[in-house]
């Protein structure tokens, strides 16, 4: 009768390749021989999220669409830490809680990070960092959203298609107004912002220092992409980058999700692209993306505005070729030309805020995307454009990136499509959501707030397990197909706050409302 110890190292590795994250962790703890086998076997992780807040830390590890592990390490009132762990479920009732009298939440977080990821064989697609503090982006958002008449400015300038004639429009009154308003910010507020920023950077630096010196080992994530959220700055990205392995590190992505009761799926995404920024001597691409879940936000204005004010160019991606996309595509006046077997292009020239710009529209079977390129950034854009076209010709990929179901991997598509759910599923850890700039009566915000209360209530009701009753670690539940996000009951508020007429609601929201009606809510 043969057993595990009769298998050769290669056979053992073959088995270990098929284990999930927690299976690997458990096997590592059985013996020294098995530990080295696990550490030598390749493992792929789709996404890791590390959130830091005043209350504690959160580590979420997504291995596949339907497999994830969530570990919350919170401050314990009398010292020590409380660890909440759940697998493949967002329901707080499925959380297993454990109290640790020794060690700080920071210590346990660093220990887990080391145990989970610190091997050359563990490859991660993206590592997402969230931290409280940072830049006060909502103010920036308020400032930006305040210019609802920005559209007039854009259309006015785009009327002049010819760059030579466009110089007449150099001095835009509204553009001047924008500049004046930026200067108007009170001085004391600016100082406070700088203080918060510096404090956050110091916090990150200290955390990283501890990570790197933990048990005298240097810790790094072997990941392709570093993902931050709206409250981060390039400076913070550089600090976080110290945790990355520069052999695998390729890009930085900064995410903001603007939720709205119109839809739980994104309608449009507005990006600012810096093709190559210098990160400690390495050239890394940097993309800032804002996902809009409504067309009521000034997304179009943002697209032109960001294209002009950023250090690179802006990109607009529609998740579906719907009425709005059709409208914008039809309004583009440049002549159509086929630039690849799959892409049709329209180019138009104009001015925005006094700067000459080129607007490039791309349409393919996958959908529609567009670029705003300032005249002085055309060289940078050309490099980006050439590499994009090369990829398109070789692999047929479109420019929609993770908004396209066909051209991106299943995990990324699913993850970004469901980002808005975080407001309700993880109300305590939703730093990626842009703080709402609405009035005090905004029902979207009320809904998120109520979800938070409900979540905390459910967590509070949990009985802390004693060590002897501790459930085993690992992805115990069997996977049942692709992720189906369960919305907590608090989302009934979507019905109250929903769009004015049935036709305005997205199919997704409609389905949700119907299912809630069916269960009698």
């Amino acid at each position, binding site marked *: *009768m*043969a*057993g*595990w*110890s*009769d*298998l*050769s190292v290669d*056979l053992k590795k*073959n*088995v*270990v*390749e*098929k*284990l*999930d994250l*927690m*299976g690997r962790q*458990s*096997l*590592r*703890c*059985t*013996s*020294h*021989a*098995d530990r080295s086998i696990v550490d030598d076997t390749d493992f792929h992780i789709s996404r890791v999220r590390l959130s830091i807040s005043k209350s504690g830390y959160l580590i979420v590890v997504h291995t596949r669409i339907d497999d994830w592990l969530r570990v919350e390490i919170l401050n314990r009132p009398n010292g020590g830490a409380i660890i909440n762990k759940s697998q493949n479920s967002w329901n707080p009732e499925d959380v297993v809680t454990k109290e640790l009298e020794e060690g700080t939440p920071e210590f346990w977080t660093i220990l887990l990070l080391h145990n989970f990821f610190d091997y050359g064989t563990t490859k991660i697609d993206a590592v997402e960092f969230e931290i409280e503090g940072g830049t006060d982006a909502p103010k920036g958002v308020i400032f930006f959203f305040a210019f609802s008449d920005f559209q007039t400015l854009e259309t006015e300038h785009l009327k002049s298609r010819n760059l030579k004639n466009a110089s007449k429009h150099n001095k835009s009154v509204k553009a001047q107004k924008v500049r004046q308003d930026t200067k108007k910010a009170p001085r004391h507020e600016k100082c406070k912002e700088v203080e918060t920023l510096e404090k956050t950077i110091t916090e990150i630096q200290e955390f990283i220092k501890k990570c790197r010196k933990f048990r005298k080992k240097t810790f790094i994530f072997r990941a392709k992409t570093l993902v931050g959220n709206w409250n981060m700055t390039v400076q913070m990205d550089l600090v976080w980058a110290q945790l990355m392995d520069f052999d695998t590190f390729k890009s930085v992505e900064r995410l903001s999700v603007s939720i709205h009761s119109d839809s739980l799926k994104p309608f449009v995404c507005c990006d600012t692209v810096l093709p190559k920024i210098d990160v400690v001597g390495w050239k890394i691409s940097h993309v800032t993306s804002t996902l809009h879940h409504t067309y009521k936000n000034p997304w179009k204005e943002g697209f032109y505005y960001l294209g002009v004010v950023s250090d690179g160019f802006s990109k607009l991606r529609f998740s579906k070729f719907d009425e709005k996309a059709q409208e914008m595509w039809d309004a583009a006046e440049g002549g159509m030309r086929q630039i690849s077997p799959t892409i049709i292009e329209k180019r138009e020239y104009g001015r925005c805020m006094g700067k000459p710009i080129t607007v490039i529209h791309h349409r393919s079977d996958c959908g529609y995307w567009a670029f705003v390129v300032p005249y002085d950034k055309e060289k940078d854009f050309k490099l980006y454009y050439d590499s994009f076209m090369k990829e398109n010709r070789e692999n047929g990929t479109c420019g929609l990136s993770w908004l396209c179901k066909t051209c991106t991997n299943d995990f990324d598509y699913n993850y970004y499509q469901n980002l808005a759910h975080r407001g309700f599923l993880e109300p305590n850890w939703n730093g990626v959501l842009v703080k709402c700039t609405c009035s005090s009566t905004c029902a979207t915000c009320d809904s998120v707030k109520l979800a938070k209360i409900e979540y905390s209530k459910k967590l509070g009701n949990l009985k802390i397990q004693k060590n002897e009753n501790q459930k*085993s*670690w*690992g*992805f*115990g*539940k*069997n996977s049942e197909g692709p992720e189906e996000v369960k919305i907590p009951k608090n989302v009934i508020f979507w019905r109250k706050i929903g769009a004015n007429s049935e036709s305005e609601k997205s199919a997704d929201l409609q389905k949700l409302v119907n299912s809630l009606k069916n269960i009698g809510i």
Partner: protein
Amino acid sequence: MSSTEQGTSSAAPAEPTTAPESAAAPEVPESFYYVHGKDKVVHKVSAGALQHSALIHGMISNLGYTEEQAKANPFPFENIDGDILQMVVDWCNQHKGKPTPPEDTNLPKQKEKLFDLVLAVNYLEIKELLTYCCKQVAMMVKGKSPEEIREIWMIPTDAEDEAAEKEAKKRAGKEAAGETAAAAGDAK
């Protein structure tokens, strides 16, 4: 299904009771080969089914046996238990000329047999079946704690390993001392 019959020796295998039949009769008569395990039970398997095994496939292509020669010289796999070889032969027949499905639910669930099957399949170089078997082995410990894994897979702890190593060294030392004493006695 493959046919089996108790054989007395590998050199003179008994006639199998039934021959495997495919649904549609092929135009060219299919050649058959014979294999037996530790228990000397001879299994008649078609060349098509044996293509799954890189080891046997390589042996067949090198030997160029006729039907009679193949019958007279079944491939001996003395390191594989009869019931395990039967399982492998059944799987090969079941998946003869078919694309292999992503999951195989017919694999044994008992850990003892599963590990034996893994070793046999690895020896016979049946890649697809090895993948299924390894997956099945991995599933045995899904969601289990280190202690549970140790119990299921019978993994000794480091302390037990060390103790066993010490014991073995002690025994080897004693045996060596005994041998030298005996040699000295003989010399006297």
